């Protein structure tokens, strides 16, 4: 028996709302099938099953808001010998987000009655104060029984029979409050700047050849089959990373786990503000045309507010490309738990020295922000050089 849980779709996610069941009890499910839609601060996310079998029962109705890790459904797996117990509490899979989002200027909590000496994390105290939770009634699960964020959140979620606040009818399913999106970005970036010792590198790359090659290729093709420069960047990056595993993976529980594949996250700006950076899975093994198709598909779905949980949780590195109308360069911020992010400015025609002559060339400013816990600037520089080298032979991408 497998348990289907509320997944963690990023370092900043603590709870989600089950919007819709797409599989009902008795339905066959296989690994990778989308079985539910969950609303998070990033929008409506399609959640895939990780097991193959039969969906036995839903444990929660649509509309439930529950913390990450909560069991949502039971899946009867073929040939399962051992029944796993139905957990009611979230497993400690994710590190306890105790010091998450400790705001700098929290007014002193109105100090509800609490036994002296009982430890409460600042985030938990803030949440309790905001939601009127009596801390003395909360059982702590942190170190030495300290009350951490999840504890007060659980207390809040399991307070009196929960009155579901109906969504305004005008709001389409999956629409995200801009403030929720902003809060999600703020939480992730605050954590990044607090925890990750960034270092930064920049490199001006002559992309004249790559763009000329792409334009010539696009000339003979209908619009549906045309490439964009971002596709060349994604593929160059993915190929370059095969030699630089220390930039490709996720940092969890105090150590770096290199990824076997490159799932390049692409920073996509949403119309009306905000951004997400979901993964293009197995970027290195896709052809350039497949990368382009994936990029178009992903952008369209992201902007329609519909993408998959694995796309949010899986990126092993991120690319932020400013596009042809952007500015010269970006100093990007790593998206935890990743350890590196590559920026590409707008390619601009500039006077450039080639063989002793000043020549107009299209120059693109590459930047890298990487995690000093895992790599050093020397290797980072070699990675940027390797991406540059790959771009000089676009036909080999």
């Amino acid at each position, binding site marked *: 028996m497998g348990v289907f849980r509320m997944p963690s779709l990023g370092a900043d996610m603590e709870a989600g709302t089950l919007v819709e069941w797409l599989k009902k009890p008795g339905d066959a499910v296989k690994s990778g099938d989308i079985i539910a839609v969950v609303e998070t601060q990033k929008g409506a996310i399609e959640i895939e099953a990780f097991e193959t079998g039969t969906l036995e029962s839903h444990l929660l109705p649509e509309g439930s808001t529950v913390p990450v890790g909560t069991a949502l459904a039971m899946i009867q797996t073929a040939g399962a010998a051992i029944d796993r117990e139905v957990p009611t509490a979230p497993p400690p899979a994710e590190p306890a987000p105790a010091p998450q989002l400790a705001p700098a200027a929290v007014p002193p909590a109105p100090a509800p009655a609490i036994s002296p000496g009982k430890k409460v994390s600042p985030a938990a105290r803030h949440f309790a104060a905001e939601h009127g939770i009596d801390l003395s009634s909360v059982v702590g699960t942190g170190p030495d029984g300290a009350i951490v964020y999840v504890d007060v959140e659980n207390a809040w979620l399991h307070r009196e029979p929960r009155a579901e606040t109906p969504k305004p009818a005008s709001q389409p399913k999956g629409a995200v409050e801009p403030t929720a999106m902003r809060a999600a970005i703020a939480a992730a970036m605050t954590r990044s700047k607090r925890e990750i010792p960034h270092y930064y590198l920049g490199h001006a790359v002559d992309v004249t050849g790559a763009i000329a090659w792409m334009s010539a290729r696009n*000339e003979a093709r*209908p*619009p*549906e089959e045309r490439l*964009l420069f971002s596709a060349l960047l994604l593929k160059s990056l993915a190929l370059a990373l095969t030699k630089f595993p220390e930039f490709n993976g996720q940092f969890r529980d105090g150590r770096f786990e290199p990824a076997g594949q490159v799932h390049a996250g692409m920073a996509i700006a949403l119309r009306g503000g905000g951004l997400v950076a979901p993964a293009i899975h197995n970027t290195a093994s896709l052809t350039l045309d497949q990368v382009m198709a994936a*990029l178009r598909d992903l952008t369209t779905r992201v902007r329609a507010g519909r993408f998959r949980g694995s796309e949010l949780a899986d990126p092993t590195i991120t690319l932020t490309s400013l596009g042809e*109308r952007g500015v010269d360069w970006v100093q990007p911020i790593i998206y935890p738990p990743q350890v590196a992010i590559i920026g590409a400015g707008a390619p601009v025609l500039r006077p450039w020295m080639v063989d002793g002559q000043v020549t107009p060339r299209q120059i693109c400013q590459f930047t890298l922000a990487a995690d000093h816990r895992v790599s050093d600037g020397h290797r980072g520089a070699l990675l940027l050089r390797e991406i540059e080298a790959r771009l000089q032979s676009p036909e080999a991408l």
Partner: protein
Amino acid sequence: MTPDDVKTILFEEIGNIAPEADLSALRPEADLREELDIDSIGFLNLIIALGQRLGINVPEKDYSRLGTVNSAVAYLTKSISLAGR
């Protein structure tokens, strides 16, 4: 197809790319992409959609001719008539 018909289709397709935009306030000589913040992918999707709706193939080198509403309508109308539609 008259320029007005073309403009109607152009606005419909722009609306799909930039659903929140108020197209009635769009100045006909303003830079379309600048004004509506349409990025490379959004613009490519617009070209694809217009190609399918109007039965024409807009080559990449002509993208700049779709810079404003007026120039886009003129260019598309001409392309349609050249294509014999």
